[in-house]
């Protein structure tokens, strides 16, 4: 797909977001949509790591929660304006993840997953116990200023505005990620993911690019964390808990990672599924688990993989073809 076509699709996606708010959707449903979009960005972060590094993280909630706590602490102590605090927090998350990544991305497979789980749970416990800074298990309110980027807080916190901000950000983040992954950096990380040893023997140093992907995925997850803190005005240790990472990972698996849009679809399906269940939502995880099993058994590459398989089948017929991207 050419860059022009991707740009056009991105503009169409943004237009679709603006079209959605014209449909007269209730504020509560718009709230669900906003939460879905926030988690779609979170899932994009986890998906990029899985797609480019082939690594499964059980601890990405660390970066989701850390973004909220970072904003909360900076704004509570009035260190800098919120407009500056947002990039500072995201940059700090990326640097931290890069340094951690230099060590942990060397560890293969399940051991990497366990390391991320351990680091994430350490952060969860620290946030739960450091009452003086984080409010402990009660969490902390985030003192967003009266105006942000020139918009009043009341205007910004309207469900329609919040949804549009999150939606546009999601499209922009996806577009930027597509552009990054189409560069030489994308090819190098794909090569390392497919065959690290062979990558070394064609002259690729393998640790730095893998750490960079880990930092990039943490950065994207951090964006979701900042958005979530703006949406709820609150952050608690629950945002750092491993179960948040696990649910996001489920969204990624359901959506598929062959295309970047996969994790987004997974997140939207998850939230719509939960919303449709209505009063039966207490059993949502059991039902979503069953759906997950069905996806893994019948379409290991997720919803996007199934759609792509269907496209190839329609184009070339049922006989197995050599796939050209």
């Amino acid at each position, binding site marked *: 797909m050419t860059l022009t076509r991707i740009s056009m699709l991105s503009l169409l996606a943004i237009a679709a977001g603006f079209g959605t708010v014209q449909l007269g959707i209730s504020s509560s449903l718009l709230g669900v949509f906003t939460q879905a979009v926030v988690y779609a960005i979170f899932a994009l972060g986890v998906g990029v790591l899985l797609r480019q590094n082939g690594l499964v993280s059980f601890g990405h909630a660390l970066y989701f929660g850390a973004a909220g706590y970072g904003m909360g602490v900076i704004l509570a102590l009035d260190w800098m304006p919120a407009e500056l605090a947002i990039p500072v927090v995201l940059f700090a998350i990326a640097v931290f993840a890069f340094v951690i990544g230099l060590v942990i991305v060397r560890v293969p497979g399940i051991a990497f997953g366990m390391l991320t789980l351990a680091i994430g749970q350490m952060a969860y416990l620290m946030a739960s116990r450091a009452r003086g800074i984080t409010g402990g298990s009660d969490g902390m309110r985030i003192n967003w200023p009266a105006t942000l980027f020139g918009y009043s807080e009341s205007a910004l916190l309207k469900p329609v505005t919040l949804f549009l901000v999150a939606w546009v950000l999601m499209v922009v983040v996806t577009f930027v990620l597509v552009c990054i992954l189409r560069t030489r950096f994308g090819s190098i990380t*794909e090569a390392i993911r497919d*065959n690290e040893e062979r990558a070394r023997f*064609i002259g*690729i140093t393998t640790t730095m690019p893998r750490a960079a992907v880990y930092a990039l995925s943490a950065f994207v997850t951090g964006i979701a964390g900042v958005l979530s803190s703006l949406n709820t005005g609150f952050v608690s240790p629950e945002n750092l808990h491993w179960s948040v990472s696990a649910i996001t990972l489920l969204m990624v698996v359901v959506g598929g990672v062959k295309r970047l849009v996969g994790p987004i679809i997974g997140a939207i399906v998850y939230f719509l599924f939960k919303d449709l269940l209505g009063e039966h939502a207490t059993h949502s995880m059991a039902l979503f688990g069953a759906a997950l099993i069905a996806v893994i058994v019948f379409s290991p590459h997720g919803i996007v993989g199934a759609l792509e398989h269907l496209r190839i089948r329609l184009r070339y017929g049922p006989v197995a073809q050599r796939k050209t*991207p």
Partner: protein
Amino acid sequence: MTTQYVLQAEDVAIHYGGVKALDGVAITLEKGQIRGLIGPNGAGKSTVIDAITGRTRLTRGKIVLDGEDVSHLGAVERRRRGLSRSFQRTSIFGGMTVLKQVELASYKMGVEDPIADAHAVLEELNLDNLTHVNAEDLGYGEQRRLDLALALVGRPKLLMLDEPMAGLSVMESLDLAQHLKALTSRWDVSVLLVEHDMDVVFGISDVVTVFELGRAIADGDPASVRANPRVREAYLGSAA
């Protein structure tokens, strides 16, 4: 006139505790020369390649590439200096297209025009009609040739091939062997060839080294090695 060696491996030893996988091996390669390495399974042939390419750390010894001691360098640095290899098991990037991975390898070698270089290598190996096919969708023989293409980009000084004919039919093997001989001669690439197919080894090698239990037991031109009674007893047997 002194001989110019592309490779000088001196007193190379690799020990795993009490097990001596290689013990005091010395191998040289002249420019454009093909050296065949033969021996029974477990003799240390692949370990020699691992030692020279930096995949395995040396217990003792020295690796000199084109006059430079590269013993202390890692695999990436050795590849950048022109020391390339293929693997016993096909080692390619399954999720990438043929052209994309060969072009990437070419770029990492610092070639000025990686796309042109990739096309040239793919054409040499008859893969130019498969450039946009994902590597995982190739047939086995095509994957073996792609593995070779990844090793050949950037015109390495020294190419080490670990059983490149494994799994190929007799005709495919002989065809690839002759093609390889012509190509390396044209590109002036020295080759260290580990192979079990004796027709291939004796057919294209300039010199042959025979390994047994981590040591070289014979070395010389193909005819003298084939006639060596110790080699016949240890490895060739009736195949000679």
